[in-house]
Structure formats: structure tokens, C-alpha cells
């Protein structure tokens, strides 16, 4: 039953993706100021939104793990699985953002990169969660989950500080801002529609991949636990 639902959801997601692509490439008009290159926005901004939401999911997972690890083992493991899934899928989407952004910027504003608040925060967020994933890979033993959860909390604390410090820096050294608020530029209903469809499509895709990653991790957790039990029993 679950597989059927997942399968149908996957088909719906793919359909949304195809529809979103059609909207972005063929229905939406060229931007009045930027022209054709503006179309990158239909993939760039939704990816950023999904990445931020999934990093928030990871944070809640980390907090959940720290809360439940002594009291409720099952819930703690579930929380940790969400923490990992959110972080990993978030990094994938964030990588997309950091690659498509400069490609867009190069044509639209003549620069690959600038240190404004949004770009800097996105880059630091990416660095923090990549380091989170590396900690999970390199840290040994059962305490890894606790360490990772703590790092997740630290990372989340850092993000608003990065954003604010960059804003202050920018008031001292004004520099090109990479694109204004994209929403404000879009008045054409065809553009808004294409944007909306792609937002929906990318969230659908993201949630699909997130659920898959969560399930793979849960399976892995169960396997690891059984291995540990066996090893203990063999020693008795």
C-alpha cells in the first residue's frame, strides 16, 4: 500500500516537473530588463527555498535527538534520521543554488560572485552542513549522533549572525547586490504562474527525495542496531 502511494506520488512529481519546465521555457515571457537569462530563476529560487526549509528540518531533528536520546530511544533515532536526511538533501539543493546563481549572475550582472548578505549566508550554510556531513562520516562509534546533533545546533546559531554581520559590512562597503527581490520584479501573470508551478514541482521533488533518504537511513539504523546486538550476544 505504501509503495503504491509512493509510486503515485513519484509520478505526480515527475508530471509537475515536466509541466514546470514547459512553463519556464515556453510559456513565461522574457524578462523586460534581463531577457532570456532570467529563466534561471525558476530553478534557482525554488531550490534555495527547499534547501532552507530542509536545513530547518535538520535542525529540528538535531534538537529532537538531543531531547529524546536518554528517555525515548526510538524517537531519538527517528529524529536523528530526519536530521541526516534534511542535511544531506539540503546540501544537494544548496549546491544547485550555488552553481546556478553565479551562472545567472555572470550574464545578468556581469559578475560571478559578490559578498552580499544572501550569497555569503548561503555559502556559509553550505559549508556548515557539509562539515556536518563530514563529521558524521569521520566520527567514530555511537557518540557520533550526539556530536552531530550538537554541531547542528551550533551551525543554526551561526546563520543569523552571518546574515547580520554581512548586512552591516555592506552598509560600510556598498557593492552590487545580486538581483533584487525576485518577487518584486515579477508582475506578469505568466511569469508568476511559471514561478508558482516550479516552486510546487521542486518542493514535491525535494519532499520525495527527503522521504526516500529518511527511509534508507532508518533501514541502516535498524541494521546497525541488530549488528550491535549480535556482537554483544556473541560475547556473552
Amino acid at each position, binding site marked *: 500500500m505504501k509503495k503504491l502511494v509512493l509510486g503515485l506520488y513519484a509520478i505526480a512529481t515527475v508530471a509537475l516537473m515536466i509541466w514546470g519546465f514547459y512553463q519556464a521555457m515556453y510559456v513565461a515571457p522574457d524578462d523586460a530588463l534581463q531577457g532570456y537569462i532570467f529563466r534561471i530563476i525558476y530553478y534557482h529560487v525554488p531550490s534555495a527555498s527547499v534547501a532552507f526549509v530542509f536545513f530547518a528540518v535538520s535542525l529540528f531533528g538535531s534538537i529532537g535527538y*538531543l531531547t529524546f536520546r536518554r528517555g525515548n530511544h526510538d524517537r531519538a533515532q527517528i529524529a536523528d534520521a530526519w536530521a541526516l536526511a534534511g542535511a544531506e538533501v539540503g546540501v544537494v539543493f544548496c549546491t544547485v543554488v550555488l552553481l546556478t546563481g553565479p551562472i545567472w549572475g555572470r550574464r545578468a550582472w556581469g559578475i560571478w560572485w559578490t559578498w552580499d548578505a544572501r550569497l555569503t549566508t548561503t555559502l*556559509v550554510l553550505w*559549508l*556548515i552542513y557539509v*562539515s*556536518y556531513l*563530514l*563529521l558524521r562520516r*569521520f*566520527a*567514530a*562509534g*555511537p*557518540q557520533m549522533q*550526539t*556530536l552531530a546533533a*550538537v*554541531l547542528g*545546533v*551550533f*551551525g543554526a*546559531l*551561526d546563520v543569523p*549572525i*552571518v546574515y*547580520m*554581520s*554581512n548586512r*552591516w*559590512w555592506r552598509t*560600510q562597503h556598498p557593492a552590487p547586490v545580486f538581483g533584487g527581490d525576485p518577487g518584486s520584479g515579477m508582475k506578469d501573470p505568466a511569469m508568476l504562474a511559471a514561478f508558482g508551478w516550479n516552486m510546487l514541482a521542486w518542493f514535491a521533488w525535494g519532499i520525495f527525495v527527503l522521504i526516500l533518504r529518511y527511509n534508507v537511513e532508518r533501514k541502516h539504523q535498524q541494521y546497525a542496531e541488530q549488528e550491535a546486538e549480535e556482537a554483544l550476544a556473541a560475547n556473552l
Partner: protein
Amino acid sequence: MTSALWTHLIKDLRIEWRSKDAINSMLFFALLVVVLFSMSFDPQGAFARDIAGGVLCVATMFASVSALNQAWAREIRHQVLDAQRMAPTSGAELFLAKVIANFLFVAIVQVVLAPVFLVMYNLNVQGQAWKLALVLPLGTWALVANGTFFAAMAIRSRNRELLLPLILFPIFLPALLAMVVATKDILTGESDPSLWIKLLLGYDIIFTTVSLLLFDVIFHAE
């Protein structure tokens, strides 16, 4: 200061005084960075004042990382760390003592390095020099407090030398930015560094508090 904190602190200072391991390696490493940049950029006048802050902070950062790993590795030998965990004192006191000790070591390195720096970069401070005495300690505290915490996290992994800078640097970035820009503002006298000093203070308070609260979690992680 509680007696446990004081005991840990004296112990660390005494060990370091006898071997001078950490300070020597830090000093040498930092000196190398300072000299290398001076040679390759040959900074003069305004350009020197622009980059000096960045070079000093980067030198401090790289030098500290080696010392931070050593600080905890020392505890793991002879199961000293396990003994510490079983002691009835809170882990936070051990942590704070280590941070203070490491802070003193890095500060000594910076003080020794300062004249070398002034000479190699031909620096004369255009702004209010006394503010440097605020910026440098605050920035160094941010580095050492977070660094000691993350070093404790990395200590039981197999790539601890690699892992520490990987997890420390992204989180340290805003403090690094504040330290570099504030130093530059003071050296060039171009703008007021107060905002950055406040940011460093806020950063230090937030992260030191969170580290003290969460240290026992990672110390006794099982």
C-alpha cells in the same frame, strides 16, 4: 573561580610551562605565515594596513588549530580523559579551564609576534590603537572557545587533525570577518570599528554560553 576550574587551569599551565610544546609550534607556524605573506606581497603603506588584519587573523587561526588538537590529545593518553569524566565535577569547568589556558597561550604568541609584524609590514596605526586591545582578545577568545569545544568533539575520530578545521572554520567565519574588518578599520583609521567590536562581544557571549551548556553532552556522549 571554583577550585576545580583553578586546578585544571594550573595543571594545564604547568604542563605547558615545562614542555612549551604548544607555544613553540604555534609561534613557529604563525611566524611562517606572517613572513611568507610579507615576502610575497611586499606590503607598503596603505596596502600593508589593508591586509595586515587578515594576515594576522589567518596566522592565528592556523597556529591555534595545531595547539587545540594537542590540548585534548594530551588528555586521552593514559586514560586521563576517562578519569576526568568520572570525577564529580562538571565537565564545563574542565572546558573553561582549557579555554582560558589555550587563550593565554595564543595571546602570548600574538604578543611575541606583534613587533615582528610591525616591522615586516611597516605599520603605523592611523586610527585608535587602544581599540586593538579590545578587538584581538575578543576575536581570539571566539576562536579558542569554539576551537576547544570542537576539538573535544573531533578527538575520538580517526581524522581529527582534518576534522577540526573543517567543522570550526565555517562557524568561526563571522567572528573572523569582524576581527579582520575591525583591525583594518583601526589600522587605516577609515571607519569606526565599534559595530564589529559589539558583534565580537555578542558572538563571544552567545557561543561561550552555549558551549558551557552543551559541553557535558559531548563529553559524556555515549
